[in-house]
């Protein structure tokens, strides 16, 4: 059999590294030898601290949560990484956007993989977020004390849809152009604040000052709309989602841990 790892048998270079000040400055706790040690590792690690140090046995039953929230969060990370990669080649200029998108697909090494990952993860995230919401509803996990976290979750759903919508314009092809034309025309049809909606006279709404105009920065989808949607898609909405996700995960812990069968 193999020699036991760790403990008294370790020596040589590995031990020298582990005893060095540099190593110890990063890892405060040594390799865990018992339950208490393992708790300490989780407690003292930034990346692991998201997890509770103890998990109820029923909390690891996968068929209760189906990991839908976790999958959504994972997809958000995939989207952030691939999205940042795409930003290295994509310029939100009406003269370049479409060509840059095509270049990513046909010229940039592995560009098509990155774009496909971004696209599929985006579609999938909309699906998993909605399924996550359905699961929370069906298991009654929105009930007190988790009612505020449900509200944050609804905000995150809206942000997911907005991210999806703003990303839709960026390829700057016919599909993108007309989809955003239709989508923002819907905004023009809202009551009071859209120039096409009922009661728009109340707020004095015209084509040039209603909510659609603010969204597009123009009366039609054009250069201003492209840069607006780009900035919202790459900076504004992800930042808002990040803050809300931090609160969402924190509340999961504070509201009694992951919801589980009674």
């Amino acid at each position, binding site marked *: 059999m193999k020699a036991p790892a760790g403990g008294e048998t370790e020596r040589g270079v590995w031990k020298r590294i582990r005893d060095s000040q540099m190593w110890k400055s990063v890892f405060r706790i040594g390799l865990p030898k018992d339950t208490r040690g393992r708790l300490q590792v989780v407690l003292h690690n930034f990346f692991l601290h998201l997890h509770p140090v103890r998990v109820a046995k029923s909390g690891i039953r996968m068929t209760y949560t189906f990991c839908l929230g976790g999958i959504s969060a994972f997809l958000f990370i995939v989207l952030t990484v691939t999205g940042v*990669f795409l930003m*290295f*080649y994509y310029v939100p200029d009406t003269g370049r956007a479409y060509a840059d998108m095509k*270049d990513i697909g046909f*010229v*940039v*090494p*592995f*560009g098509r*993989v*990155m774009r496909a990952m971004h696209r599929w993860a985006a579609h999938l995230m909309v699906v998993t977020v909605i399924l996550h919401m359905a699961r929370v509803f069906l298991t009654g996990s929105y009930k007190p004390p988790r009612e505020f976290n449900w509200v944050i979750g609804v905000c995150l759903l809206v942000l997911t849809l907005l991210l999806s919508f703003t990303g839709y314009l960026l390829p700057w092809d016919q599909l993108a152009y007309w989809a955003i034309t239709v989508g923002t025309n819907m905004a023009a049809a809202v009551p009071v604040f859209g120039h096409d909606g009922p009661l728009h006279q109340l707020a004095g709404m015209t084509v040039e000052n209603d909510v659609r105009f603010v969204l597009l920065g123009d009366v039609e989808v054009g250069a201003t709309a492209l840069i607006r949607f780009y900035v919202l898609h790459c900076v504004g909405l992800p930042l808002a989602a990040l803050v809300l996700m931090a609160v969402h995960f924190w509340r999961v812990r504070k509201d009694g841990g992951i919801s589980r069968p009674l």
Partner: protein
Amino acid sequence: MSVGPGGEQGSAARDAGGLTRRAFGARLLAAGWWSLAAAGLVGAWSTFRFFVPRTVYSAPTRFLAGRPEEYSTGEVSTRFLESQRVWLVRSEAGIYALLARCTHLGCRPNWIAEEGRFKCPCHGSNFDSEGKVLAGPAPKPLMRAAVYLTEKGELLVDRGHVADWAEAARDPDFLVQVPGVPANPG
């Protein structure tokens, strides 16, 4: 050998020459980790590759610059200054290409035809039409780019192949000798 969990089933499996349940699980787990590591390597490599573009949109470093007859003797041509940052100069000896980059700190000097010299606006370095330093802080003459004559009789400048004064003087790639009197086209 210790008896693993799985008990009699396990020993039955061993007797049959197969794997115990635990050993099979361990192998499966190891295979999982190895595939994860392999996927990580492939991912890291493709990520690196993603940032090395196959195509760039800046002007090509090799470009055709017309026929020698299009340049008159003594002329410092600014035809490719904007697009390629290169002056083509025709002297008695032939045609050569000067990089429009001051050897002091990399600014772009201007050709002042009346004075017959290049003047750098940044720190006042002056060069003559051969690129030799006349004044100012520039430590070296202007760099040169390689010039060739193609079979069709066109000048080909290679901005990717540059040399300083001494190298260019030795290397025939940096001067296209134009034979005889300048011929008039047509």
